[in-house]
């Protein structure tokens, strides 16, 4: 939850909601870009950027080398797998209908 995970912005999805598609360790997910855009870096400039993603929000632009080094340590401590599992759980939660109990 707190460590975040590096990913690369591959597509802008929604300029009003400031959403982009980010490739995180091979998995693509919609991510909010509000905290990495500003007057000097518009949302259209974000494609190709490496960012540190925390719970679905890009919080910092990083360079590619930093992204790779960070991914390495996150892999070592099991956080990459944990983040990807959390993303899958989130996808499932959004697709579930009705009052699911134990599932």
């Amino acid at each position: 939850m707190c460590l975040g995970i590096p990913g690369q912005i591959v597509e802008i999805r929604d300029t009003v909601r400031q959403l982009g598609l980010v490739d995180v360790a091979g998995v693509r997910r919609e991510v909010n870009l509000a905290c990495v855009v500003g007057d000097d870096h518009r949302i259209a400039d974000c494609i190709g950027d490496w960012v540190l993603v925390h719970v679905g929000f890009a919080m910092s632009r990083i360079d590619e080398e930093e992204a790779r080094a960070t991914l390495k340590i996150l892999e070592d401590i099991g956080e990459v797998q944990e983040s990807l599992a959390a993303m899958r759980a989130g996808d499932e939660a959004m697709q579930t209908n009705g009052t699911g109990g134990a599932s």
Partner: protein
Amino acid sequence: MKYVDEFRDPAKARALIGEINVQVARIETCKSRPLAIMEVCGGHTHAIFKYGIEQMLPDAVELVHGPGCPVCVLPMGRVDDCVALAETPGVIFTTFGDAMRVPGSKKSLMQAKADGADIRMVYSPLDALAIARSNPDKEVIFFGLGFETTMPSTALTILQAEAEGIRNFSLFCNHITIIPTMEAICSSPDLKLDGFLGPGHVSMVIGEAPYRFIAERYKRPLVISGFEPLDVLHSIAMVLKQIAEGRAEIENQYSRIVPKNGNEQAQAAISRVFELREFFEWRGLGSIDHSGVRIRDAYAHYDAERKFAVPALKIADPAACQCGDVLKGLLKPQDCKVFGRACTPETPLGALMVSSEGACAAYYQYGDLDREPVGEDA
């Protein structure tokens, strides 16, 4: 030094350990007692255990594992509140997976889900908002948890809900804030700390300035640190260098991620949506003034505490559990009476055993149990 070979750059790791030893030799006080450096952030705790960083340090340096794991400091009463909200008819309760197994006084969220409550693990508060969008006949509550790192994400989610006019969404706000907590640690009479490793990603949001009081008022060095083992070693060396030179300053080892002024967009979102609470209850540490935030009146309709009946009972931690002393650095995890016996990652009694960022779970997983006692080199 068997661990060093696992480092990305073993030669650099050896050089940093050499530097640490050089600084330690310059410091008079550590000839009579070990220097205590607290890593505030649970992410650092996890990295320190994984890479065996404590074992690489001279006996004159001790690491104290701080309270920077939001799941670990969540009081039992708040878990009970989550369960009560989740069991309210018509509610879909959404949470980060980390919180599912934290024990409440009667049950955890995991058990409440097994009992039939609609509890869903999400990756992002935006997932929770999407669930609200597609379930207009349900009330969707998001369990907001974490320090300043995750606070902007919940703030921006509420602003998004407001922009879209979504009204069946609310936040059970348990966000906590690092500065008052560090203030409480610094002013506590039973704590003897010589310096701090500052959190990386919290600092990425808040910047360097909020820590200044630690240097100015409490005369302790703080170095904002990255998470790579080389970052941690480098930051420890920087703290020791300050001590050796009689300095107490805020330094930033992680400037490649942490801008001096933090992230201004994130800060703006936080201050639009949240305000400080008078106090907030922490597991093991008790009540700390101004250490939590709540939703401002302007967004009251997104506040689950105002929208629903929340029991808000104060529940004491289990008597056998010594999480509080471990959190304050007074007790090593393996010296707790229930560590590894009644309390394991599979059946945690205390929250420090639940999260991989908790000191007890880290000790359990990576086993620091063979370490010789300080002063007995064999």
